[in-house]
Each structure stands twice: as C-alpha cells, then as structure tokens.
C-alpha cells in the first residue's frame, strides 16, 4: 500500500479551480518531486495534503489517503494530530517561518511540547540532538539564540529539525531551497537526502527548479495549470519526456540543456566598460568599516556579455550599482566609452532590475513607463514618442493592447519586458542586468534570455549581467568574473571558467549546479 495516495483531488479558491482532479502516490522512503511554474497548483496540492489551505480555498472532490485514512474530509482541528506527527512540513521561506521573538530551542521544542513528548528536560535534550542531527554546530549554545542571529541556510536547517522532530513518515518540502544560495542549497538537499535514507522517510519535494527535481527525486510529477502533465520515474521522464510541456521545460531549464558556449570575436575597438580597482566600504559600526567590494577590476568588450557571478553578499550588486553610478565608489574608477557626464550618462547606460514588480511605478500605464525616458530627454514630440513606444513594445514582443494597462495587470515576464523596453528607449549602448531573470519561471526566463540575445545581435548592446545562477550565466555570457566576499576570484571566457575552473570557490559553485542530464 502506498504511503500517500492522492486521488482525483480538486481544490478551488473562491470558486476558481486551482487544482483539477490530480492523482499521484508516494511510496514509503521515496522522493517524489512535484514540478511546475508559479500558478501550476503545486503548492496548493502540498498545502491541501497537510491541511493548511487558506480560508478562501475549498477541497471540491477527491481523496487524500495517508495509509488508509482519508485526510480530505478532516477538519483543520483533527489534522493537528497528523501535522508534525505523520507529516512534517519544511516551509519555503526560512526568513519568515521562524518566530523572531522565540529562541531556536523553544521553537524546535514546541512541536515536542504540543504533542507531549516528555518533560522539560527530555525535550531540551532532544532539541540538542535534533539540532546536531541537522548539522548545526554547538547545538546547545545555538538553542539559546534567536532566528536573526542565524544565516538563511542555518534557519532552513532549524526548520528541517522541526519537521523531523517526531519522525514523521512523510516530509513535505515546499521549495525548501529557493531562497538560498546555490552552495547552501546543495548542502540542504544533501541533508534531506541523508535523513530520508536514515529514517526511511518519504519526501514530497515541491519545486519550480527542474534541475533540483531531476537531481534529487525518484519520481517526477509535472504540473501545469492545476493538472498533471506527466508523471513517472525521474530518469525515464527526463530521458524521454512524453508531454510537450515537459519537453519545453527541459529545453528551457538552463541547467538541463547544454548549449554551445557563446564566443566573442576578438575585440576590435577599445573595451566598452573598464573597471579598475573598485572599492566600496560601508560603515558597519561606530569605528568598524566593512568592504563590500574590495579591489574589483574587469573589462567588457563592445557587443558582448560579461557576467558577474556570486552568492548573496559577494558584492556583485554593489559593483553593478557603481558601474551605473547609482552608488559612489570609495575608490577606483569605472570608465564607460562614449558615456556623457551627469544626466547624459543615463542615455548611454541603463539598468534593468531584478524585481519587475518593484521597478515599475504602480500608478503609471505601460505607455507612460516606456515613454518616460524619452520625455526626460525631450526626444521627439508627442507623436514621435508615441510611435517610438509602439516600436519598443514590438521589439520586446509585447502586444499593443497592453499600452494602457497598469503593471499589476501584467505577468512577471511581461513586466520584465516592459522594464527592458524602458531601458532601450534612449538607445543605450550598455545595459546592466541585475538578476534580471532570477524572479521568473524557467520558460519565461528562457524567453527573456532569447530576447536579450536577439537585442544584443540587432542593436550591438553590451551587457553586464549580474547573477547567482551559473546555469543562466553559462548560457548568456561571453566572459565571466566569479565574485566571492567582495573580490573577483577568477575571470575569463565562459567556456574556460566552466570547463577548467582554476579557483576552489568556482569549483564549489559549479559542483552545486545539478548535473546536466543530456
């Protein structure tokens, strides 16, 4: 008998179907990955299983059989005897999933206390055991600390400790590593794997990252628009995807499709961007100073893409902001060939932000947003500007009827296209892309990357591409600089850095990318 057997499950929000009659099983001790893009219903499915759907959601039909009990009909109150005991949950966002005013020990102990597993002393001992088990050092001292004193990876370990505290037979991990750096992500996934083999716990891994799913699961369930497109053993699905959607996902996932490296012609002109010994210091206290960027130098040739790769805190974004003159360097220089002084600089260099939700004024229409740079520089009269906005929208492949829409009426991919159109409005030569595709689903991400490549070919743009995602960087960039703790540890052509990494840190980063399957 299966450990978990979901049969014909349908869930709707305010009467609108989010999950439409899906069925799958999880066997004891195996990892099943539910893969899909945002809005595919994968998280809803996970929440339905553990009985944590929000108030406006209803389970319309179907069964959720855990062993031989049907959880679908249980009240939230009755589910309390299941949550933590038989099903553990590892939530998505380690930053917001711990109570900031309680110590780590109290929070891990809480689940034991609720289910009355022993007196205070045994619980305290068990907490230390658990924290040690999930690989946290000095567990006893750590139990007395508060969440804000821990890094993202450590917090996620604490959450895993809570999930395994009562040794449940199933752990639901809802995007357990999406908010973490790649090297940390790998260690967390390793930990979940270890625990699974040690306790024989089954894992339901919900993720948008096909690379992670391919690497870590026994079976794959591919979801789209609330339906299951395809399911089967991971290796088989990856080797021979049957559904068209799975094929597209595989094609678009940068980690899974090995493409040719982009190679640049030897530079004919002087480089477009020259960065020399750039340093940025921030005050870290009354007398302490922290160096976010510590002597960074690189050059980018005209019409090529240079990637700055690193994990959070590596100083890559600060470097990018100094290149676009939004942050003033403490010392060092940035030279951009042909860029004017003062405000004219903005006609030459443009920045595209990571978060397409935050970088567009919510009160402006798409037309106003794209037109704004033209108005700022008084380029053309009203009719000419309107025509130019139309052209720009066409360039980024957005339909004309979006012109009057507000940003909130657009999808993430559409918003990022609007942001790119705005950046291109003044015909810049250098575009700095700060994690410009990180917030997007893989298929949308692939489309934006294609768009960027095409624009580079047509307009001869020079890109400085900031990213933590090596798989994306491998695909788009000609040259790479790897950053760690404010310094560039290695740089060179993409093929050289990826195939023959010279620095230990680069090798660690590369090892963290899930293995290419094809």
């Amino acid at each position, binding site marked *: 008998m299966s450990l978990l057997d979901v049969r014909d499950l349908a869930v709707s929000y305010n009467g609108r179907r989010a999950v439409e009659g899906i069925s799958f099983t999880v066997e004891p001790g195996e990892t099943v990955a539910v893969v899909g893009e945002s809005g595919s219903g994968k998280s809803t499915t996970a929440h339905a299983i553990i009985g944590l759907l929000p108030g406006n959601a209803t389970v319309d039909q179907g069964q959720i059989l855990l062993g031989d009990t049907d959880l679908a009909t249980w009240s939230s109150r009755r589910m309390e005897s299941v949550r933590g005991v038989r099903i553990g949950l590892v939530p998505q966002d380690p930053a917001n999933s711990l109570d900031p005013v309680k110590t780590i020990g109290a929070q891990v102990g809480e689940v034991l206390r609720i289910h009355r597993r022993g007196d205070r002393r045994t619980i305290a001992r068990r907490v230390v055991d658990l924290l040690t088990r999930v690989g946290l050092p000095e567990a006893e001292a750590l139990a007395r600390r508060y969440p804000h004193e821990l890094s993202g990876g450590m917090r996620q370990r604490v959450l895993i400790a809570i999930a395994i505290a009562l040794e449940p037979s199933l752990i639901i991990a809802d995007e357990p590593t999406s908010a973490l750096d790649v090297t940390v992500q790998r260690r967390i996934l390793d930990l979940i794997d270890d625990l699974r083999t040690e306790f024989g716990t089954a894992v339901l891994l919900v993720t948008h990252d096909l690379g992670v799913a391919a690497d870590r699961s026994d079976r794959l369930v591919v979801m789209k628009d609330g339906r299951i497109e395809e399911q089967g053993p991971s290796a088989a699905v990856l080797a021979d995807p049957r559904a068209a959607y799975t094929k597209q996902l595989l094609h678009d996932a940068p980690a899974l499709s090995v493409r040719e490296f982009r190679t640049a012609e030897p530079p004919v002109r002087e480089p477009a961007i020259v960065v020399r010994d750039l340093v940025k210091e921030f005050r870290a206290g009354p007398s302490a100073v922290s160096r976010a960027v510590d002597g960074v130098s690189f050059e980018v040739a005209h019409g090529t893409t240079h990637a700055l790769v690193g994990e959070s805190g590596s100083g890559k974004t600060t470097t990018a902001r100094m290149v*676009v003159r939004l942050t003033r360097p403490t010392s060092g220089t940035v030279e951009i060939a042909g860029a004017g002084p003062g405000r004219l600089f*903005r006609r030459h260099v443009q*920045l595209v932000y990571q978060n397409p939700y*935050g970088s567009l*004024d*919510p009160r402006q229409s798409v037309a106003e947003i794209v037109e704004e*740079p033209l108005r*700022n520089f008084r380029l053309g009269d009203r009719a000419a500007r309107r025509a130019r906005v139309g052209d720009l929208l066409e360039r980024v492949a957005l339909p004309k009827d979006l012109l009057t829409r507000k940003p909130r009426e657009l999808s993430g991919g559409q918003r990022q296209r609007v*942001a790119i159109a705005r950046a291109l*409005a003044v015909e810049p030569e250098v575009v700095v892309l700060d994690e410009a595709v990180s917030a997007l689903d893989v298929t949308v991400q692939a489309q934006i990357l294609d768009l960027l490549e095409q624009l580079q070919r047509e307009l001869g743009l020079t890109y400085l591409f900031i990213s933590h995602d090596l798989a994306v960087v491998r695909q788009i960039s000609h040259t790479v600089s790897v950053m760690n703790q404010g310094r560039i540890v290695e740089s060179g052509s993409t093929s050289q850095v990826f195939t023959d990494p010279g620095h230990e840190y680069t090798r660690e980063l590369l090892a963290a990318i899930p293995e290419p399957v094809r």
Partner: protein
Amino acid sequence: MNRPKIGLVLAWLVIGVALLWAVVPGVFTGHDPIAGVPAEKLQAPSGQHLFGTDAVGRDLFARVVHGAVHSLSGAFVAVGVGLLLGTLLGLLAGSAGGLLDDAIMRFVDVLLSVPGLLLALTVIILLGPGTVNVAIAVGIGSVAAFARLSRAEVVRVRRTDYVEAAFGSGGRYTTVLRRHVLPNSLGPVIALAALQFGLAILAISTLGFLGYGAEPPTPEWGLLISEGRNYLATSWWLTSLPGAVVVSVVLAAGRISRSLGADLGKDRA
C-alpha cells in the same frame, strides 16, 4: 464579497446631507436662522420646530442647517492649510534627507509637543478671532500630523526601485518627485485628510464654544452648543441636538477616512 457596507453608505449619506445643508440650506428649512419669534422661545422639538427653539425663539434646526456652511467651510480651510503645509514640509524633509530633514522634523516635533487646542488658541491670539482665523489656527494644529505621515510615505516611496529607475532613465530631481514620489505617497495622506476633516469640525466647534470663532448671532455649530449651555437643565435639545449633528459628521468622516485608507492602500506593493 462586494456586499455594500452599510456603515460606509450611511457615512457618505451623513456627509452628503451636511454638504447639501451648506450649499442649499433653503431647501431643508423655511425658518429664518437669525430672526426669532420671541413668543415661541424655548419650545421642545415638535413637528413645527424639528430641533425645538432657543431662548429668543429662533428655530434651532434652521440654525443648524444654516450653520453648516460656517462649520464645513472652516473645516475645509483648516484641512487645506494642514494638508498643504504639512505635505510640503513632509515632502521636503523626506526627499532632502540629512540636515534639512532633521531641522524640519524637530520643528514638527515641537508643534506636536504643544496640545492642539493650546496651539490653536495661541495662533488665534496672534491672528485675532474670526471664522477664517479659527480655521487657519486649527489647520496649523494639524500640520504636524500631515508632515509626519507624508514624510514617512515619501521616505518609503523614495527607497523603491521604481523611483531609482526613474532617476536611472534620466529623470531630474523635481520631475521624479512630481511624477512618482508625490502621487505614490498621497494615498494615506488623503485618508488622513478625511479624518482631519472630522477633527477640524470638532476643533472649530470647540473654539466656537469658547467664543473665539464666529460672532453671535452667526449660527456656527460650536457657538450653538455654547449658547445652549445656560439652558442645559431646562432645555436639553439646545445642546444635545447640535451636539449629535457634530458627532455624526465627525464619525462619518472617520469612517470614510478608513475606507479611503483601505482602498488607496491596495496599490502598495
């Protein structure tokens, strides 16, 4: 989900009626608010005199209706003064930052540390009594609240990516302030304006009650209550009914402010 909220509808109704009183008082009452009929003095509310009559036989309902224009226009002026000055200070402080920010906000702190009524009285003593001066005084009393709120909003919006992106696409400082920072900061400020409108009516009535506002026999709401004070024991309606009108208008403004705050908050990321 879209069930109309009865309280909100009622609030708009109250404000609507009060505004109509101010604009076309003749439609609501046929009595003269100034000239009384001494023979009919101190009558209890009846079909003839809805709110009863006062000590000189004037119809109280007529006086309340005709008084609306004085109290409401006063409140408008007060909110206008507070909104304009306060938002200007807040915008300046929030966008400039640094020393100017500190200077403006400490000044606002000083304003805030003086009780509102005392501040208003001080201003009136400087300007002299009168309806407009009372309104200005009350407005100055609310500058601090507007300045603080708008500064907080400006500081929040100033940090957003889209404001930085606006500078990034070549926007000048003032253009960005006008086109992005101001519109996106105004939502909560407008909600506060509605709330302050109610409070201004209350403050103006208070000052009227104390005798700093309109001169008798002008039928200003606060003055009406003040005049009725001497007859509290015998003629309850002289204080209670105008008082009830003031209370309902103030409460209605508060309710509308809350709904504005909720609606305008939707655009926030």
